[in-house]
């Protein structure tokens, strides 16, 4: 009976380690800040929860502390991810809209928060609007 609980705990621990590895690979490989946040915010929270569940199976005396930690992680993880995403959005999105409306390319946010494809699409949009203004004149 003891060994069955240990094996269930080990399986849960390695599932959690796999989730954490997926989060790290996502943060390493994805192109811009929003997608990296998408990778780290979900998988790292889930990884900690699975590792905690496995630890609770192997070490039953710690189950209350692990429960408290997991509930705290469930509430704090998405709030932290949302705070980072809101900070990124407030810092860059308005500049790009302003650049499109005024046709000023120096306002485009090239600091790397957005992927190269998105920045190129913003620049193309500015070119199109300036051409339309010239043809109407």
């Amino acid at each position, binding site marked *: 009976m003891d060994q069955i609980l*240990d094996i269930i705990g*080990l399986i849960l*621990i*390695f599932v*959690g*380690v796999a989730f*954490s*590895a997926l*989060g*790290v690979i996502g*943060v*390493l490989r994805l192109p811009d*800040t929003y997608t*990296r*946040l998408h990778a*780290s915010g979900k998988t*790292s*929270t889930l*990884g*900690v929860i699975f*590792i*905690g569940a496995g*630890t609770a199976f*192997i*070490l039953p*005396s*710690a189950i209350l*502390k*692990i429960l*408290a*930690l997991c509930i*705290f*992680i469930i509430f*704090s*993880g998405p*709030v*932290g*991810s949302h*705070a*980072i995403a*809101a*900070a*990124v959005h*407030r*810092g860059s999105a308005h500049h790009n809209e302003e650049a499109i409306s005024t046709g000023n390319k120096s306002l485009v946010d090239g*600091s*790397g*928060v957005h992927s190269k494809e998105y920045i190129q699409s913003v620049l193309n949009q500015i070119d199109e609007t300036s051409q339309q203004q010239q043809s109407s004149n």
Partner: protein
Amino acid sequence: MNGIDVAVNIAILIMVILLPIAFYRVAKSRQKAAERLVGVDLITNLIVGIVMLLAIIEQTDTTIDIGIVLAALSFAGTVSIARYISEGRVF
């Protein structure tokens, strides 16, 4: 050292190998502070996982208190730094 300890040590080894990979994203990022904040948040979550695995090796539940305190402090730090990035001040 029985089989459980060996397997948990392998899990800790994998998690510790993941740490410098996540730190590479923090150190080499050409982006703004928000980009580094994503990496630091991920590293903290990895360390909380490692601390819980260490509790199995030590056979004591006192080690998990470290994880609770680290999670609480990292949440406060993440939210305040995000607020500093977006508004230019913390309070």
